[in-house]
């Protein structure tokens, strides 16, 4: 499976309301970050959690966000960042 993004790419986390065992927290949805690294291919937790195989595999990335992108009133230096793991189907190019 060929990863769609590479380190350094700017990505937008999809603003999607999806019930169930979703590993994309609300606070990063609709936010723009940068791919830090490709973690690898993992079974999809949104299916795994309900007794399915989790196939097909999903590429998992670590995405780096500027804190002041996540929180408009962030109280700290502008180079503070946050890194989080996001599966490919939650990302679109930014």
């Amino acid at each position: 499976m060929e990863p769609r993004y590479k380190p350094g790419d700017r990505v937008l986390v999809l603003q999607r309301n999806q019930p169930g065992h979703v590993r994309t927290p609300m606070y990063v949805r609709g936010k723009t970050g940068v791919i830090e690294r490709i973690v690898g291919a993992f079974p999809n937790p949104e299916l795994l959690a309900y007794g399915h195989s989790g196939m097909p595999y999903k590429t998992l990335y670590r995405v780096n966000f500027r804190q002041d992108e996540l929180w408009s009133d962030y109280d700290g230096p502008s180079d503070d960042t946050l890194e989080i793991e996001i599966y490919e189907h939650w990302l679109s190019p930014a």
Partner: protein
Amino acid sequence: MSETHDHPTHTHDGKPIQEDALPPIDAHVLETSVRELLIEKGIISAGDIRRAIDVMESRNPALGAKIVARAWTDPEYRELLLTDSDRAMLAFGIDMRPMELCVVENTDEVHNMVVCTLCSCYPRPVLGIPPAWYKRRDYRSRAVREPRAVLQEFGTEIPSNKQVRVHDSNADLRYLVLPQRPAGTEGWDAEALARLVTRDSMIGVSDALSPADIED
């Protein structure tokens, strides 16, 4: 001790036993049912469960401290720890599977801290069971929202020219912070250094101890 003596300055509310006043919650009933079924069907035994708990409880931050101290004293091991953490864990008999470990290094420029906003994901094979505060909603929500204020409450002041990088442990990786080696420890061996490495410093809510902190 007499039951009737006066206690002007203290009470005896701290009973040595805990009363089971509340009925079990649904999750307990579910866990018991599934466990008993698995045992009844011969899939696992009660002994298997007890042994798994033994293994879980045998893990504690002293293990992580040894790993950090080795990285401080052995540059090749440090490199392995940062680039192939799972292999570096195997050197200490730790198998992270099915998770992967990601070690993040504190430097003069960056301070890392770890949280799991969605639940309580934690590098249990290396550090054992997470502290109660790590699982609390206030830590989980505030660590991503106002990390510097949370760090301050742990007594950790990060200068504004140093970046704070928060890691949300939300999926398949588990995180271990490699703290900075404290000043004044030149020539210390790994065993002595391990005494400076605390659980909190490997979660990233504090730095490692300084030599003065452990003077008798």
